[in-house]
């Protein structure tokens, strides 16, 4: 039995994961370039937090750094509390006892995430042995078979001795999931878990993650560039732009009343089957490169609502109950209408 199952979940006030002012930089010849610029996140026990943003906005990096898995040239500051334990600056040895046991991770491309020269069974067994020294070989194999069944991989007793390249993309991701939940984690971080998969398989994997979440009572961090994925599966959503959280809200509030122009643009770019035109909308321009963040609000060169103040002054974060937005005009944006938004942005951008 895990520690989580034994303790009674504390009041909602104390989140399972609490990230405050997380900054991640890379030291280069011309000083340190910040890629994650002060991120705050809360993940409640059993909750699902979606982290959304364009590619390169710092989603992966912030979670990796929070768990001590950042590249060696990265500099991390801020605080990350997991079950009230501070993780930033913690010794590697201590981090290792959490990773793979109380915190599991899956990544975008299951083929490159699995070791090509180890059997699938050995890779799952490894995570079991790493966190349970008294485990016997037989016990481990039995557990692996259970896990493969749990993630619905047929013919587990045969599959256990196969190598990753003998699996299909979806099956590989199931193996990754089996490995990540092998030790009954309290938190599962899924970094673009369906991006590299076929559309039909994407839905299966998302359904499986949700079922496992219910069955095992784990909290889920769902990192994706696709707001559509978040809409169906997250409780709360954090929208990340240029290394900062620009908006954070309950998923329903976010879609019903987005309070940040960037979020509005993202929602407008979700492809709609019933759309009148076949043209897909996308936010004009491109996100800033690492370290080349515009003065004031980093989004201003792409924002149709930008005013002079946006070009000089970084916007404060405004809170509307549990809904936060970092925009000078968060309380004064025109009423939200998805259809109009694409048109309006199209004209101005």
């Amino acid at each position, binding site marked *: 039995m895990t520690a989580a199952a034994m303790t009674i979940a504390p009041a909602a006030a104390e989140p399972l994961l609490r990230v405050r002012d997380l900054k991640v930089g890379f030291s280069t010849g011309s000083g340190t370039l910040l890629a994650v610029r002060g991120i705050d996140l809360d993940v409640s026990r059993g909750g699902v937090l979606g982290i959304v943003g364009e590619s390169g906005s710092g989603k992966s990096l912030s979670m990796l750094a929070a768990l001590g898995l950042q590249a060696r040239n990265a500099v991390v500051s801020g605080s990350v509390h997991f079950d009230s334990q501070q993780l930033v600056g913690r010794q590697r040895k201590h981090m*290792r006892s*959490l*990773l*793979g046991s109380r915190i599991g*991770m899956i990544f975008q491309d299951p083929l490159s995430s699995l070791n090509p*020269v180890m059997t699938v069974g050995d890779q799952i067994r*490894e995570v079991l042995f*790493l966190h349970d020294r008294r485990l016997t070989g037989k016990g481990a194999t039995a557990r692996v078979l259970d896990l493969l069944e749990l993630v619905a991989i047929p013919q587990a007793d045969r599959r256990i001795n196969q190598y990753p390249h003998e699996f299909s993309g979806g099956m590989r991701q199931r193996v990754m999931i089996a490995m990540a939940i092998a030790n009954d984690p309290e938190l599962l971080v899924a970094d673009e878990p369906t991006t590299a998969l076929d559309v039909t398989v994407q839905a299966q994997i998302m359904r499986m993650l949700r079922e496992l979440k219910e069955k095992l009572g784990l909290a889920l961090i769902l990192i994706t560039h696709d707001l559509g994925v978040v809409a169906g599966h997250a409780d709360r959503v954090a929208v990340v732009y240029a290394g900062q959280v620009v908006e954070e809200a309950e998923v329903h509030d976010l879609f019903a009343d987005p309070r940040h122009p960037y979020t509005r643009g993202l929602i407008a770019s979700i492809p709609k089957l019933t759309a009148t035109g076949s043209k897909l909308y996308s936010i004009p321009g491109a996100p800033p490169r690492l370290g080349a963040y515009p003065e004031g609000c980093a989004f201003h060169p792409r924002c149709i609502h930008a005013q002079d103040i946006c070009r000089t002054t970084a916007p404060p974060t405004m809170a509307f109950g549990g809904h936060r937005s970092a925009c000078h005009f968060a309380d004064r944006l025109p009423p939200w209408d998805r259809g109009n938004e694409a048109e309006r942005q199209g004209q101005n951008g």
Partner: protein
Amino acid sequence: MLNYIMRRAVAMPFILLGIVTLAFLLTTITKGDPLTAIVSERQMNNPEIVAAAKARWGLDRSLPERYVIYVANLVTGDMGTSFVTRRPVSRDIAARLPATLELVIAAMAIGSTTGILLGLLAAYYRDSVIDQTARLFSLFGSSVPIFWLGLALLFVFSVHYHLLPGPGRLDARLTPPPSLTGFMVVDTLLAGNPAAFKDALLHLILPSLVLGWTVAGSISRIVRANMLEIMEREFILTARAKGAGELRVVFRHALRNILVPVLTVLGYTFAYLITGAVLTEAVFGWPGIGSYAVIAARSLDFPAIIGVTIVGGMMFLITNLLTDIAYVFANPRVRLN
């Protein structure tokens, strides 16, 4: 894959025949007259002696005839008789090959362990002082001339400090053990002679260090380059996210993925050193196949030259085959195709 290996094994005799033919043809285009190795200068003026010598060594036959006779004999394991030692070439080689193998195996053991460790360290601590030091060390090993390094080490450890013995395989005052394997270290053990065993081992240290250093250079470079690439791969992150320690990440996850290129270099280096250890053998008075080849070449000892060529080629083929078999175990993908 098994099929492929079988095909390779079947092809070996034919490749060998090709090597024999080439070696044979090459000896005919050299300008030198092999008779000078057989007949003394004074006797060269005596046509009778010259004719007798020609007949005795088969040099009066035409080239195609000589070729056919040679290949026919070769099939029975007969490589002809050395002009110089006047003994069967196969016996000469059998006596000298183990000495080379002993040296090369020791050098490979030293060179591959240090090479792999240095390569791993250099890659893991890339661009750090450790990396620079490891790279300097391997650069030194592969660029400093062997005879210089050998002589320098001999001078320091043998002549100056008397820590290690000089050239040769065994102290002249000791009785050599009966040659069972041809490996001095093994034969002295089998003979139950610990004093000789220790002496043989001490004799082996310097030459295998010198030769091993050059090996370490090339191995560490290939390990470093491949490790740098592998350590960036996503499954390394997965391993860390599972809670694996760095030693496990490097040895269990990364190293296993670079076995194929490392085995390739190891196999190639081993095969190359069988005849390529010649400088080391020369510096350390090591009676191996390399120094035999030098003597043979200098005296136009054709049977010996062709014999060494065949053995060298055979070593290459065998090592290649073994490397191929090793691939099968190193890479599950090869196993299926």
